[in-house]
């Protein structure tokens, strides 16, 4: 299998895809250069929508990087052989997406040249600063975990390393959720449900990314995935999608119960700009209902359906983040509750945001980096899942 696989990876299609990804990364870097030259004025971000499309890409990648490790955890921590065989690939994808996401976050800074300041001046009360440690620690933890899985002499350490990664990624995704939970004055954020919500949706998004990559590798190798493994992984993804939807529903229902939050919910769910359409169509229908239909309908659930469901889950993920992060900022701050306000600085007004090409390219560049790391990693090291017969 390895021989065939290596041959496949020397095909023109492989080099073609790597070239395209390289060009996307270069386009992203050029966008960064433009942003450096002209300032953030060439992005769609402004003083009200301060985090935009780059953050959507970055947060999606970071969350999925944590979630994809679920595959490893189920293998190492819960001893499921079908998942154990896939743990190295999950580890590689995690590192790849983490690298892509963090690159985007870093290059979107107003002063990316000062990134070293973030390491030398550390504010202990800042959740951002905690995340710097969590993200860099995650790289180290996953790299160590991969080593224990790929080096025979280290096999005995694989379980403890897997357990460490299992704990670490929980804390990491909690940290990402807490970035928003700590924003006390924003109606979209400032709630303790966000960290667990991020953890649960990370499972679904990570599984979706894993399915897409695994299917691509198998299709490329003209291999077919074991029916039993396919079914287990597909059903697990379905459960995660339902759990994610439950958390999102709880978040909105709780908000709807608070009189002070109803205006905000009306904005997100009913009449606010593009956000209701993105929420209902993008997240609920495309990101949840259709994938669940594809996964659980008795006549469906085959390989192609699972790939389609995974792609839809990823699209739904982007929609949800757009609604939560951009929509959450577009809704005006309630500085004077009970008053109608207006000013020259957008007080009381819905913030407008239209993403510009440079910031979209920056975000896509992050995806390109993730793709390149995965493609090269799979090419040079042994990351292809090998079926262990009689999975339990």
């Amino acid at each position, binding site marked *: 299998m390895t021989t065939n696989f290596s041959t496949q990876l020397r095909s023109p299609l492989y080099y073609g895809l790597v070239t395209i990804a390289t060009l996307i990364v270069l386009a992203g870097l050029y966008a960064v250069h433009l942003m450096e030259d002209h300032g953030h004025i060439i992005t769609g971000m402004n003083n009200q929508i301060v985090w935009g499309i780059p953050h959507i890409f970055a947060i999606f990648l970071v969350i999925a990087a944590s979630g994809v490790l679920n595959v490893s955890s189920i293998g190492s921590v819960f001893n499921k052989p079908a998942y154990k065989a896939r743990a190295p690939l999950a580890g590689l994808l995690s590192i790849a997406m983490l690298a892509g996401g963090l690159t985007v976050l870093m290059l979107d800074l107003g*002063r990316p040249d*000062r990134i070293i*300041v973030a390491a030398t001046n550390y504010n202990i009360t800042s959740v951002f600063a905690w995340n710097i440690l969590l993200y860099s620690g995650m790289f180290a933890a996953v790299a160590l975990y991969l080593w224990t899985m790929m080096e025979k002499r280290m096999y005995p350490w694989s379980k403890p390393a897997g357990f460490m990664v299992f704990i670490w990624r929980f804390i990491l995704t909690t940290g990402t959720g807490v970035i928003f939970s700590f924003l006390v004055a924003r109606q979209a954020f400032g709630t303790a449900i966000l960290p667990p919500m991020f953890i649960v949706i990370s499972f679904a998004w990570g599984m979706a990314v894993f399915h897409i990559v695994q299917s691509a590798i198998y299709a490329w190798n003209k291999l077919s995935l074991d029916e039993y493994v396919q079914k287990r992984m597909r059903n697990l993804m379905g459960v995660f999608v339902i759990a994610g939807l439950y958390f999102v529903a709880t978040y909105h229902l709780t908000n709807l119960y608070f009189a002070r939050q109803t205006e905000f919910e009306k904005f997100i769910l009913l009449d606010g700009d593009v956000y209701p359409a993105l929420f209902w169509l993008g997240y609920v229908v495309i990101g949840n209902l259709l994938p669940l239909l594809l996964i659980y309908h008795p006549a469906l659930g085959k390989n192609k359906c699972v790939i389609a469901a995974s792609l839809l889950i990823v699209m739904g993920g982007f929609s949800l983040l757009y609604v939560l992060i951009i929509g959450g900022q577009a809704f005006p701050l309630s*500085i004077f509750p009970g008053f109608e306000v207006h*000013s020259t600085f957008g007080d009381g007004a819905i913030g*407008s945001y239209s993403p510009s090409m440079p910031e979209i390219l920056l975000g896509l560049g992050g995806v390109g980096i993730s793709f390149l790391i995965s493609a090269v990693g799979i090419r040079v090291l042994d990351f292809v899942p090998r079926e262990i017969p009689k999975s339990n």
Partner: protein
Amino acid sequence: MNDTNTQRRQFLKTSVGAAAVAIAPGMLLFDMAHGKSEPVSGKVRWGMLIDTANCADGCNDCVTACNRENGLSGGLSATDSQWIRKIELKDMRTGRELALPMMCQHCEHPPCVDVCPTGASFKRADGIVLVDKHLCIGCRYCMMACPYKARSFVHEPLNDQNPDVPRGRGTVESCTMCVHRVDNGQQPACAEACPNKSILFGDLNDPESEISRKIRSVASTQVRADLGLNTGVRYQGL
């Protein structure tokens, strides 16, 4: 005393004199650039009391003065910096209308300082909340955290800056309470410019200061007092 000695003395005197003349302006400039050498006192807490009843509708003098003092363009697009702005309010239940200036509230527990990863956002001992432009990496987390929308991000390269008020593209900025003026014993530009003297600036910690005496005798409120940030800026008649 021989001739050589006299010449040597003369030479030394001239050298010392020349050195003094050469160094003195530098020392003076160094002093000017670095301001006072003694640290800011924590015994002081600078604050403001804004009387909304006297804040005239349509008057923008505080905003203009702030822009002039701090070298801001005065542009009103969504990407322009506005350190102070006039907000017009209408009570949705009673219909009462009023206007007031809004800026950094210089909180005792500033969320921007809590969330800043590098410590660029900081609070001076005298309560003034500032951004260290050399440490700010431009992540904008402070803008997400500020309940008052008081901060602006510099979206474009800057020219013609006021030397007393350094700013930087790609960094976040906000009202400094005109710290460069306050340190020289002056009032913030907005307080000085207000034609109705609606902005009263002073030391909240000094029981005998005008601002302390006034907040003892009139009802004043902090904006979003429910957040418990204990702002340095208070409003009367809100």
